[in-house]
């Protein structure tokens, strides 16, 4: 997490973004060069939007040589689903939706009442990877997000069970990415590994990329829950004793509505968001993700099981 903006000059900042872009495009092209059936995870969140943008740039003027996939918990922000569907149509790309609700209905997973569906995404994700025979899964995870992710490779092999073995990762030397894997295994690929939250916003600004409007400050009914500002939705009604109030908020991360908190904000533009992000003293997941708070190693435990 970068706490200070590089301030020497605009050209310096732009130079750094161009390097990040070149690195990500190089990685995305390696995936198409080395794998038979890649797929790009696309939730309508800012990181996956930047991923889709980079992928389209990587293969221009050809069409995107792989599909997008959304692992849908069913507990979405309506604005994000509207954005997702509109963009997929505009770009002319294929979208696969792996549904947590379908997996619950089919008895593949069991929902714990009152608990977020976020960890439940692992089974539908792995099922979709298996049934579509995907051998490479491109994701927008960044190493600056979380301490277990800081240990992740750019090309990260998952075994037949989709599991990550952090103690036995392949050495990743220079930028020679090794995508060789056995039948049944697949490789998770993270082209944004070296980006920070601030880099993502600076790039969104530079490229003029549209993001769902819940990233900008807006009036919303919220309650205080688990130390976060949680929006009142049909999936998250107020609990007894909670006071609903209306506040100017925005989202720093967009995930399952039941575990993603908002932050108080008046940032109405990308430039405002960059200023707020640079001045923030709280990390993006610390501010807004209840799912990382379960234990010191909550993210590592979920990743080992096959989570994003």
């Amino acid at each position, binding site marked *: 997490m970068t706490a200070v903006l590089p301030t020497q000059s605009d050209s310096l900042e732009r130079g750094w973004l161009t390097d990040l872009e*070149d690195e990500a495009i190089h990685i995305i092209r390696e995936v198409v060069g080395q794998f038979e059936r890649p797929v790009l995870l696309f939730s309508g969140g800012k990181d996956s939007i930047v991923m889709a943008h980079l992928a389209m740039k990587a*293969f221009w*003027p050809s069409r995107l040589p792989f599909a997008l996939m959304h692992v849908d918990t069913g507990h979405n922000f309506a604005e994000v689903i509207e954005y997702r569907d509109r963009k997929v149509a505009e770009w002319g790309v294929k979208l696969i939706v792996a549904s947590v609700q379908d997996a619950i209905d089919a008895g593949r997973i069991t929902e714990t009442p009152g608990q977020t569906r976020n960890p439940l995404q692992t089974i539908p994700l792995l099922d979709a990877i298996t049934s579509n025979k995907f051998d490479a899964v491109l994701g927008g995870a960044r190493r600056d997000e979380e301490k277990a992710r800081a240990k992740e490779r750019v090309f990260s092999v998952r075994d037949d069970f989709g599991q990550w073995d952090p103690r036995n990762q392949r050495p990743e030397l220079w930028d020679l990415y090794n995508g060789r894997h*056995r039948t049944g*295994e697949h490789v998770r690929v993270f082209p944004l590994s070296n980006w920070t939250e601030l880099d993502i916003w600076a790039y969104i600004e530079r490229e003029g990329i549209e993001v769902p409007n819940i990233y900008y400050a807006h009036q919303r009914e919220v309650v205080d829950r688990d130390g976060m500002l949680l929006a009142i939705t049909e999936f998250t009604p107020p609990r007894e004793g909670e006071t609903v109030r209306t506040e100017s908020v925005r989202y720093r991360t967009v995930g399952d509505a039941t575990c993603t908190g908002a932050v108080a904000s008046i940032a109405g533009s990308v430039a405002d968001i960059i200023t707020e992000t640079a001045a923030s003293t709280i990390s993006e997941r610390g501010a807004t993700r209840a799912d990382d708070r379960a234990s010191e190693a909550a993210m590592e435990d979920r990743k080992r099981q096959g989570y994003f």
Partner: protein
Amino acid sequence: MPAGLLRVVTAGSVDDGKSTLVGRLLHDAKAVLADQMTAVQAASERRGYAGADLALLVDGLRAEREQGITIDVAYRYFATPRRTFILADTPGHVQYTRNTVTGASTADVAVILVDARSGVVEQTKRHLAVASLLRVSEIVLAVNKMDLVEFSEAVFDAIVTDFAAAAASLGVAHFTPIPVAALSGANIVTKSPQLDWYGGQALLEFLETVEPAVRADLPARFPVQVVLRPRTAEHPDYRGYAGRVEAGVLHRGDKVQVLPSGRVSVVAGIDTPTGELSEAPAGRSVTVRLEDDVDIARGDLIVVDGDPAPVVTRELQATVCWLTDRPLRAADRYQLRHTTRDVRAIVDAVESKLDIATVTPIPASELNLNDIGTVRIRLAEPIIVDPYALNRSTGAFLLVDETSGATVAAGLVR
């Protein structure tokens, strides 16, 4: 990379206080956010530590936190008003040396830590050998725990002398020694009055101002990653070669050769989605069109005419870092991965290995885990190489186990 960014790798043996140093650097450079610090304080209390253990900022894996050691490379990102940093924190245990190799392969600066009480040990020499072999252009010797040797200049000088001897036998021209105490923060961000005999910069100041040596450049090298043929109404006949410039500067109008076939052509255009470029320097991901309709596939290398020319070869003399338990012996078969090309390889001979204690080569017939040695390799098809000393991209390769897919060696073309 632009002047704004520096890639740093830290290495040291067990308990030299490396994670503490990195944590201190992040903390004192104000790159640690309030919630992360609160989590570290809470975790330290649960473990019964006296103060906040800054190592818990970087040791993210359960096993690392339980054992109090670093197992895998952690990448951290921070910025000061002067520079942006990518910091690869690598483990000290001998068994995890391969992770140090990983961190060093992309680094501009290596910070090698020693404990002032124990001085230069075998791991120090191993890390120095790795950093020098992988051509990390700046090496810092950080002598840590100076507080435990009463900030003694004589202790520091003796360690610097030992390190200089090892550096000399590895051909390392210069390094920068800095006395520090990571636990208290002495000489990490600001100079410490207890080390007033030291006339140099504090560690962060050095990292903010150091200019890594620019190596002599080669004529442009462009390995083809993917061939783009959209066949759309808008671009019915478009044929472009997508890749990244790995050396020199590629210009529109450059006379080029496509290797290994040797066919010649001229660069007709350098395309990006936002417009054509007249030139593209090393590091840029672009799409190249040629004037002639030549047969080009992934794995081919487009090179600009000029000296030195790359070598098209089926035999390699190479230095390798061996990264797996099973030893490397003559007649072993592997997949060799170089730029965007994969070829089958047979090890013809293991010639020598580096004796870490004396940092000199000794005869060897096999390489074991973490050994660094020289080998001769024969290839099923030609690859196009430059010496690693001239270019990190076209001079580097991996050996990959054909069955498991594991990366078993880092190779450097001699």
